Each structure stands twice: as C-alpha cells, then as structure tokens.
C-alpha cells in the first residue's frame, strides 16, 4: 500500500531496509527462501532471533520495559512490510508471540521475571500443547489431566500436533484440573518442563514429507504448582486471550503481497499465450489482499485502543490463510510439472543437490502442501466462521 509517509517515517523505512540488507547473513537469507512452511528450523530461527534481539527489534509489540520498541502503528507496519520484502527465516512464534503476551497479561511477577528474558534470549524454546487426539476443534473436550499432590501437579495424557515439541525444552499447555458443568471450566494453563523424564515426544511425518509437529505423551510428569498461569481451573481465560493474538493481530498482508510478486515473476517464464489466465487470477487476489491489508491496519488501530483484537480476529485468520493458500496454488500451477518431482534434498539447507527445473520451483509444492494446514490450525476456518456468526453476528 502506498501510505503517505512523513519524512521521519521514510527515514525509518530506510533504516529498517538497511538493517535487513546487512543483518541477514547469506545463510539466513537462503534459509528464508527455502522455507517450505511457516516454520523455520530451530537453529536458523534462533540465529535470526539473536540478531533481532541485539538490535532491539525482536518483539515490537511488547511493552517497552520488557523489550518492546514503542513504535507507532505506522512504524510497525513499515517493519512488517520490509520484513516481507527481505524474506528472513521465521521466528518460532510460541514463546515470542503467544506465551510472552499471555504472561504479560496473566502471569505473576515472578513468572514474568523468570520467563520473559529467557523467551527473548532463546534459552527457553516453547511449544504449545492444546490439541489432543479427541480434542481438536472441540478444545474444551481435552482430557489431559493434572492432579494436585502437595506442591506439585501430576500430569498424565496425550497432546498431538504440537509444533516444535521435539525442539522445545518447555511447553505451555492446557490440562484438566477439575470437572464442572461447563467443559471450559476446570481447565488450567500449565508450564511444563519437556526435559522431565515422564515426557515422551514423537515427530509426525506430514504429507509434504516434513516432520514439524509431534505427539507428546505425559506419564506422571511432576509440575510445581508455581508453574500455573492464571488461577487453577480458570486457564480458559488465558487461552482465549492468547488465541485472539494467534489468529490475527499480526499483519499477513505484506507477506501475501510479496508472495503475489514472486508469483508474478514466475509468470514471466511462461509462454505468452499461457499468461493471461493466471495473471488475471493474481490481479483478483491482489485486490483482495489489499483490502485485507487495510482491514489489518484498522484492526491494529483498534487493538491499540482496546488492548485485544477481539472476535474480529477470526475474520483476519480466515482471509489470511485462504489468500495464502490461493496464492500458493497459483504458484504451483505456474511452475507446473517442474513442481512435481519429490526432491527434498534440493531444498535442504546447505545441500548442493541441483534441482530438476528452476530453483524457484523447488519449494512450491511442499509449501503448498504444508500450507493446507493454515485453514486447519489455530482453530479451523469452519470454527472461525462459527465464531463470527455467533460472537460477532449473534446468530
């Protein structure tokens, strides 16, 4: 979007652009380009995190006393746009964008003092343990349970689809601590040490061939009672707060516009006669993404005022995920058969296996496949539509 920037804002944009140009090492740049999902590997994510931390730009939206930047809305937006242009690897969001804000909102002083610096430094690498085999969309049906035993909770049960659990030394999770009339009651928000001997973790191979999610088994895991966030049996309040942040409140549009731009580059490789249909499709998508961008900016402004994006974040989650899927689908059509060979060695970081077809085609299909999950995770898009119709529209 062409916002009319002030002179200061333009200077800020140049500063950010310059930072990305110099701070990203060749290896990190390559890691960003070879991403096949929204996640990067741990070492890459942490290397980039360290650079951002040193610069003081790791968590722009946190309060300044905890490491935030104090940027204006426009500055944050500029940062998001420049980041999209630079295509760095992804930061692991579980600590920085989920648990961090949750602790800031609901943690004790001791928890903030202990955990926030460790999230920033990467010393703690977090995963999110909500879903269970029988509790996906119906999260409140969760069965993992914690029983109080003196100064500990004893935890048993199974979590599934836990992103980065095999990398993480910590998990924030939802467990049942009581039975009440409403299933949302009696749930607590616990911080678990993944290095406890009762924790077992099994990676799950996905359709794309990647294994980023895990099944996690708890067998009498002992968690000190001080490791609860919010009150016992009232973990749902923390969760709802956090989910709204997970679903929207970010800025997806700059990345989507960048992805459309990359797809336009692929167009150029096609014979003239084959360009019209995908070009038109990309134009349609750009109109929609631009509309989303303005809506994201509006939501950010609202959030600054009210503190939380509210149920409208569901709308952003649906749009962001479905547009991203649509763009990656056009990309797959554009690379056509060059996208179809299964060649994981050609997109492994640091590998020098030459791909079949051009380099840009190598990640198109694995990304597309992994990206099908965007309408499933963080609350499926069906669930988001239910939320809008109920919580926003009162139907």
């Amino acid at each position, binding site marked *: 979007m062409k916002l009319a920037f002030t002179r200061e804002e333009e200077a800020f944009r140049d500063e950010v652009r310059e930072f990305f140009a110099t701070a990203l090492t060749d290896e990190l740049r390559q890691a960003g380009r070879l991403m096949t999902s929204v996640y990067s590997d741990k070492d890459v994510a942490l290397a980039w995190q360290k650079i951002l931390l040193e610069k003081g730009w790791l968590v722009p939206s946190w309060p300044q006393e905890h490491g935030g930047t104090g940027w204006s809305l426009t500055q944050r937006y500029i940062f998001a746009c420049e980041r999209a242009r630079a295509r760095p690897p992804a930061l692991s969001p579980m600590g920085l964008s989920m648990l961090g804000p949750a602790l800031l909102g609901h943690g004790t002083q001791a928890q903030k003092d202990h955990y926030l610096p460790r999230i920033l430094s990467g010393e703690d690498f977090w995963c999110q343990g909500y879903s269970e085999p029988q509790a996906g969309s119906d999260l409140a049906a969760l069965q993992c349970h914690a029983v109080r035993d003196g100064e500990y909770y004893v935890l048993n049960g199974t979590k599934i689809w836990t992103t980065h659990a095999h990398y993480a030394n910590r998990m924030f999770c939802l467990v049942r601590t009581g039975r009440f009339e409403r299933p949302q009651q009696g749930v607590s928000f616990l911080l678990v040490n993944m290095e406890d001997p009762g924790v077992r973790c099994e990676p799950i191979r996905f*359709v794309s061939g990647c294994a980023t999610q895990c099944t996690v088994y708890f067998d009498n895991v002992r968690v000190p009672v001080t490791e609860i966030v919010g009150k016992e049996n009232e973990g749902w309040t923390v969760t709802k707060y956090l989910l709204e942040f997970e679903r929207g409140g970010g800025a997806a549009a700059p990345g989507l516009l960048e992805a459309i731009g990359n797809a336009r580059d692929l167009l150029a490789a096609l014979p003239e006669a084959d360009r019209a249909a995908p070009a038109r499709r990309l134009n349609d998508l750009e109109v929609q993404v631009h509309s989303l961008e303005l809506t994201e900016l509006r939501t950010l402004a609202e959030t600054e005022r009210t503190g939380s994006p509210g149920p409208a974040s569901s709308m952003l989650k649906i749009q962001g995920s479905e547009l991203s899927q649509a763009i990656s689908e056009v990309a797959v059509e554009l690379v*056509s058969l060059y996208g179809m060979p*299964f060649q994981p060695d050609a997109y492994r970081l640091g590998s020098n296996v030459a791909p079949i077809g051009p380099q840009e085609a190598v990640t198109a299909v694995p990304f597309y496949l992994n990206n099908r*999950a965007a309408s499933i995770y963080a609350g499926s898009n069906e669930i988001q539509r239910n939320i809008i119709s109920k919580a926003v529209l009162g139907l």
Partner: protein
Amino acid sequence: MALVLNEDQALIKDTAREFCASRAPVSQLRKLRDERDPLGYDPETWKQMAELGWAGIVISEAHGGTAFGWMALGSVLEEQGRQLTASPLFATAVLGGSAIMLAGSEAQQAELLSQIAAGELTLALALEESPLHSPFGSALAAEKQGEEWVLRGSKQFVLDGHSADRLVVVARTSGSAGDREGLSLFLVPGDAKGVTRTRTIMVDSRNAAHVEFDAVTVGADSLLGKVDQGADVLEPLLDRARVCMAAEMLGTMDEAFERTLAYLRERKQFGVVIGSFQALKHRAADMFTEIELARSTVLDALSALDEDREDVPMLAALAKAKVGEALHTVSLEALQMHGGVGMTDEFDIGLFLKRARVQEQAFGGRAFQRERYATLAGF
C-alpha cells in the same frame, strides 16, 4: 451414447475393483515408495493384470487382445485410480498401444500388439520437453542417415519411462518446435545405445523419467506411421490419453470422497459426528453433485471412443476439464474435512491430494483443456 455400463463392462469393473482393492491397494504404493523400489510397480501384480486381459483390453482378438473396448478400459483405470495403483497399464495400453494401433504398419502391429496384450512388453510415450503440456512442442531431432534415423535431444516427464521396454518417441523431422507439421514417431528400445534414462520420483510417488538421446541410431522399421505426419497420430493418441486419465481421476475422486464421507460419519467433536454440521453437509452435497457431473462426461467420452465418434476431441477436453475441476475441489475438501490427521503421511487421504495434482497436469491442465474445448467448439 452409452452412459451406463453394459453387462460385460460391469463385470469387468467389479473384477477390477475387487482385484485392485485386494492385490494393488494404496498400501502397495506406500510399500513401493518406502522401499524405494527400483521398478516403481510390482511385476507380479502386472502379470496378473495381463492375465485378466487388461493389457489387451482395447486390442483386437486377432492380435491377442480381448477387444472389450474403451469403456471397459476406462472402468479398469477408474478402479486403479481408486487405489492409486502403480502399474504400467496406462503408459503401455493407453499411450504406447494407441500409438501402435493408430500408426503401426501391419508388421509392427503383428509383432507388438500381441506382446502388449500378453503383458510381455511395456511402453512409454516420450513427448514433453517442457514442464507445460505441449502437443507439438517437440524439438528432439531425428535425422535420416542412409536407411537409418539418428535421434538427438531430450525428453522430460516421461511417464514410467525409466522402466519401459520401448519408448514411443515424438521427434522433429522438419519445421521447428511448436509446428504441427514435421513431427514423426519412432519406436526406440529403452536400452538402445545413446539412451540415458534418469528416474524422477514424483510427489505422488510415481515415476516420470528424464531421457537423453545422444545420437541414438534406429532402423527404418522403427518409424511409426508417416514421416512428418506424426501429429495425425499424436492428436487422437492424446485424446485417448485425456479420456483415460479422466477415467482414472474419476476413481481417485470417488474414493477420496467416500473416505471423507466415512470420516464425517465417524469423527466426533462437540459430542456429535462432524458430518452433522451443516457447514460440512452442504459442501458434501456440492461435491456429490460435481462428481456426478464429472462422471457423465467421462462415460460419454469413453463411449465416444468406442463408437469412434467425431466429437471425441471435444469430449476428451470436456471430460479432463470437468473431472480436473471436480477432483481439485474434492481433494482439497477431503484434506480440510479430515483436520489434522488429513495432513499426516500416515493417513492415506493426503496421497490422493498429491496424486490428484499430478493427474491434473498430465496431458494438459484445466486451463489447457478449457481452452482446447472452446477452440474445438468454435469460440
């Protein structure tokens, strides 16, 4: 127009369904994939398929086939599509076999068709040289030297080309890439001197080879049909390929849909089966409708081949476009409705999505087919 199967065809379809489900199910493809099987299909299963008469199903009885026709072959391919069965049937019977039936001399037909029917000879069509389907895009050159032909160039994405006994090579004998005129077809042994085949494993765990021809010399008897007139063979050949691929896709789609319905009936959330949510029910009803529309186009296209109708090219484009559209939607919806488990390799449904993406591109994607349909319809 025969839009329903006759008794013979129905029997063949039932047999194929039973055979593929028990002898060549999805788990067989997984096994071939996980064991990195060098052939990419199970030769024993292929032998049994030939014994059932599938390899010669469109070949005349005089040449050792059963001549049950395209409707029957389509039914078999549909059942293979349902189980994602990897076999040389498509490349051999539909592609290679058609080339020989359409263009082969009496001697070539006499020699080769009975071998195909017996399951003793596998073939592949070496056509594409770019990632986009291009019927007349061949640049690979065939040059006449005395009584022999010398082939130079390369082919990409040759379906089952790494293992085929012989390759039907589309070569240029005059003109330049893109011209309809000037194409010629040659039969080249897969292990001929100068042929280098590199196997490519595709995202659907099937094979499509890269083949280099470095001054490959073949005799005059390797020419299939007339010099420079290859397009007259290639066009009906590709129409058959499109119809048959559409038939296979129909099976893939049916199965993905049925598995999804079963999951909707079984998976519980919020205390009820997810199939009770209207948001999913309506989408299932829409899919059902699209599948039925697609089925009609496939059946008519197959019967048009059996009846040798003039509208074969248009129906081939129609069927491939329509099935492509429907399968696209169904394969994505199937994954979405399975939630997290749909994303896993362990669950089969993702294999259907991957297969669907490759099928969709074979012999022209949806846009190609719509364009071709419109052109043939005179727009």
